[in-house]
């Protein structure tokens, strides 16, 4: 039987990623909606900024699509990672990073994430990976 302290601690771990959405939406779908909102795991709604959506559409071109929000994984010790070819292409363009055409992941440092979050405030989100943090 778990104690109160254990239950409290487990709850804290569970709440660490409550800001993630239940379901990702595509950029095309978000742009077609009047109110580009999504429902998060804690039941709240999160609005995507239309300016950011237009910026992403401009960078990506009309023929390609993207799943939103772009997830930035926190790997611990100030290292962040974004995976997925389209995501990597967008992040590299925004931050002006050089990348090889085959790479499907990009590692980011703390100042880069600050710059990125300044530009893509609502269309990116940071995930805490406890297993990575605890290592």
């Amino acid at each position: 039987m778990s104690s109160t302290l254990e239950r409290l601690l487990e709850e804290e771990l569970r709440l660490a990623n409550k800001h993630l959405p239940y379901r990702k939406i595509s950029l095309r779908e978000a742009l077609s909606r009047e109110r580009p909102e999504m429902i998060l795991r804690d039941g709240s709604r999160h609005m995507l900024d239309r300016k950011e959506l237009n910026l992403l559409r401009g960078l990506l071109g009309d023929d390609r699509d993207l799943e939103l929000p772009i997830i930035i994984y926190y790997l611990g010790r100030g290292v962040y990672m974004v995976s997925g070819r389209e995501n990597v292409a967008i992040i590299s363009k925004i931050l002006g990073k050089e990348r090889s055409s085959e790479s499907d992941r990009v590692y980011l440092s703390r100042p880069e994430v600050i710059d990125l979050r300044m530009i893509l405030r609502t269309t990116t989100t940071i995930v805490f990976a406890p297993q990575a943090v605890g290592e």
Partner: protein
Amino acid sequence: MSQKDLQRYQEDVKFISGPCEKGGSVEVSIGPQVRPTKTELLRLKRELRLATKVKDVLSERLLVLTNELMARIKEAKLVRRKLYQELRGACLKYLFLRSYYGSGLASAIKRGVVPLEIDEYVENLLGVKIPILKVGLEDYAALERVGLEDYAKDLARLLDSLSELIRAENAIKLIMAEIWKTRRKVNALDYVVIPRLKSNIKKISMKFDEREREEKARLKQVKAMLGEER
């Protein structure tokens, strides 16, 4: 010190200094009593592992929230600079127009000839819910009709920047509050929960060691007595 406190203190001293009976409990300096059993030791060790993990996660969350705060401060600075520039331009234009049209322009805006559009929604930044109120010009046809299209566009831009600044500064306040809350949790784990668990584990382990030593001494004594009998 009241009589009640004195009595409690005496009981505590008696408990700590007195020998611990087998099957009794070990008193720690702060916190509840713990029974010196193997199950309790395993439970405490599991809790310690969990508490350390939560502390690590919360510390990392604190770092990420601080990053977010830095981003929002940087953004608020830029938006405020932009707002001041737009405000200067719009004010100059307004003064010029007022000198030309008289006070009719201001009263027309006050009467609601130029309706405002207000949108309310929530943004969730790393679990921090930020309520947003976006104000804009719903329809500025009335201003366009009298040839004030440029002024209407300036006003729309100004309101947009103002909404952005309110959002950014509100986000700073709410993220700060979340940082304080998280820091308190980290400190509670770091300075209270984890040391208390470690202390309890140490006390139970010491109690086990003591029992083992007692058992060894008893066995030696029995062996000696048996040797004497032979």
